[in-house]
């Protein structure tokens, strides 16, 4: 539930309650005043009748008009003076009853006690009351409407800095050096929020940069010792005195140094991609690079006796050529290395996506971690960085790289741009998700 909805729900319920209670009070009060006025008019009549009786000692003529009737009835004992509400059939239309206000009082004329009843119609009072209430009700509706709209507009404007900060946080990307943009606001709470967010993101960024520099420096510093070990090994194997058992040990050292070297280079590459150090982009024809890669990888393809099918349509992307090469190399290399003997490798390229499916043993780890660093199967000799690098490259270009297991095949798919025919829901795209959220 949005803050506004919640707020206006409470606000409007409270307003309605107050207005309803107020209206009831108002009604009772207006009605009381009007009845009081009616009673005053009845009292005037009473005074006139009493003065008539006092001066002439006879009853005045009874009268019967539409809005006032006076009648006299002989009584055994004097009636108690009182006002009462009665209803009686309407003066002209006898089938409808009307409310009346009546005053009963006793008079004595020539020793005979009479009960006098003066009756006045309440019709006008009721009409007036009805109009007043109608106008009041109309005002309530207008008031609520204006309140609702004003809240809505005001809240939206007042909360704008909050939504902007939220949007900034959502778009926040550590690897990009953009700070969150704030509009100046006079509201203390939001200003506090903006300051806290700024301080926090700045700290995160600093920590991250320190970590990244560390990786970068550590990798660089390792290159020279590795070069020394490598060169000493290269010299050592020239020695003709060495026996086979020594050479076998040297081989193990070579392999270990080789792995360190690859690991080191992969880490460096990953840092560089994160730092966006491969900004230069040129139009790249993916179909041509795929052909080239398949030729480059012919050795392992031949050894594993893989069947390769390609279904390729031209696809041109604006990318860094070196990164494109690494991306395809890692994806195809991965699909070949982890393939089974006499397995298959299917490549489908469309202008909006690339799909690489291959046979192979089921994953020995959680598929959700497949793009994490150092995730690899138990028997893999790789660094566990290949797919992490591929993912990082895709992230840099806003491509969506996904893994799925379909009909016994490992499927890696890169969505370059939102597909026209569906397939991937638009909300899976980060940019689109952001657009969706910015509406409200």
């Amino acid at each position, binding site marked *: 539930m949005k803050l506004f909805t919640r707020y206006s729900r409470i606000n409007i319920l409270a307003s309605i309650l107050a207005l309803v209670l107020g209206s009831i009070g108002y009604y009772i009060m207006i009605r009381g005043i009007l009845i009081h006025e009616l009673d005053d008019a009845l009292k005037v009549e009473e005074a006139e009748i009493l003065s008539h009786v006092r001066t002439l000692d006879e009853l005045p003529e009874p009268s019967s008009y539409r809005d006032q009737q006076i009648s006299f009835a002989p009584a055994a004992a004097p009636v108690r003076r009182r006002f009462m509400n009665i209803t009686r059939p309407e003066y002209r239309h006898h089938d409808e009853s009307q409310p009346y206000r009546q005053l009963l009082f006793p008079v004595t004329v020539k020793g005979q006690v009479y009960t006098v009843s003066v009756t006045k119609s309440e019709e006008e009072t009721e009409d007036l009351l009805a109009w007043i209430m109608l106008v009041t009700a109309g005002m309530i509706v207008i008031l609520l409407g204006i309140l609702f709209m004003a809240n809505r507009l005001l809240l939206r404007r007042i909360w704008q800095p909050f939504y902007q900060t939220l949007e900034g946080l959502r778009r926040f990307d550590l690897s990009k050096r953009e700070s969150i943009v704030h509009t100046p606001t006079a509201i203390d709470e939001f200003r506090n929020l903006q300051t806290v967010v700024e301080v926090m993101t700045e700290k995160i960024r600093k920590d991250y940069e320190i970590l990244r520099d560390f990786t970068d420096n550590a990798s660089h*510093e390792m290159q020279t010792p590795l070069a*020394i070990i490598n*060169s000493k090994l290269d*010299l050592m*194997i020239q020695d003709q005195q060495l026996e086979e058992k020594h050479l076998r040990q040297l*081989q193990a050292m070579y392999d270990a140094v080789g792995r360190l070297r690859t690991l080191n280079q992969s880490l460096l590459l990953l840092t560089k991609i994160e730092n966006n150090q491969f900004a230069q982009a040129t139009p790249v024809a993916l179909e041509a690079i795929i052909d080239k890669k398949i030729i480059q990888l012919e050795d*392992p393809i031949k*050894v594993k006796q893989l069947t390769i099918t390609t279904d390729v349509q031209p696809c041109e992307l604006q990318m860094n050529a*070196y990164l494109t090469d690494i991306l395809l190399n890692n994806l195809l290399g991965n699909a070949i290395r982890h393939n089974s003997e006499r397995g298959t490798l299917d490549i489908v390229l469309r202008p909006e996506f690339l799909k690489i499916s291959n046979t192979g043993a089921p994953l020995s780890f959680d598929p959700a971690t497949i793009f994490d660093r150092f995730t690899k199967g138990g028997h893999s000799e790789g660094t566990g960085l290949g797919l992490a690098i591929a993912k990082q490259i895709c992230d840099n270009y806003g491509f969506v790289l996904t893994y799925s297991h379909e009909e016994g095949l490992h499927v890696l798919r890169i969505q370059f741009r939102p597909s026209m025919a569906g397939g991937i829901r638009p909300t899976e795209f980060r940019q689109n998700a952001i657009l969706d959220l910015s509406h409200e």
Partner: protein
Amino acid sequence: MKLLIVEDEKALADSIYSYLQRENFVCEIAPSYTGALERIAQDDYDCILLDISLQDGDGLELLKTLKSNHKTDGVLIISAHSSLEDKVSGLHLGADDYLPKPFHLSELGARVAAIIRRRHSAGSHFIRLDDIEIDIQAHLATVKGRSLDLTRKEYQLLLYFAYNKGRVVSRNAIAEHLWGDDTGGTDNYDFIYTHIKNLRRKLVEAGAGDYIQSVYGMGYKLTIP
């Protein structure tokens, strides 16, 4: 042939020195920027191996000095920073080649030999190995005048062995040379074995000697008797 090794890491400089010294090269070591500057001023070298990250100066400055003095020394840059910018600026300043650390000495040997060949034997683009002749320009190998039908990788292998004649070249160095950074781990040893087997067979069938020997399966060596 005279070589200058500009490298402040003594152990590495020594390794390079011992590996190249045997190649009929006269090697000198300059362990610092200032030392290198002096030597360059005094003497001409066929190839300078230049580590650009020296303690007391930027190796690229050395390269600039060299070029502004119109020296024709060949320059191979060695760098721990395998960054593209270093490579681009190095080559832009007139270096002949660029080799990121860590490298195999056989790779270094091949690069140095290629630089010297390019700079000094103008006109001659042939390497002779007894009865094998490699035409570097045409990417062709012939035995006794008959051209060999080699695949691209077999040709690359033959040339690599030729540049590292008489040396044991490890399988790891070969893998790196043939496949670059994206080595497929020990899988590659099988491919190397296959390629070398085919290369040897083709050489022998063409009437050349069986010059390439395996060294306990961990490396190979081309020896001309």
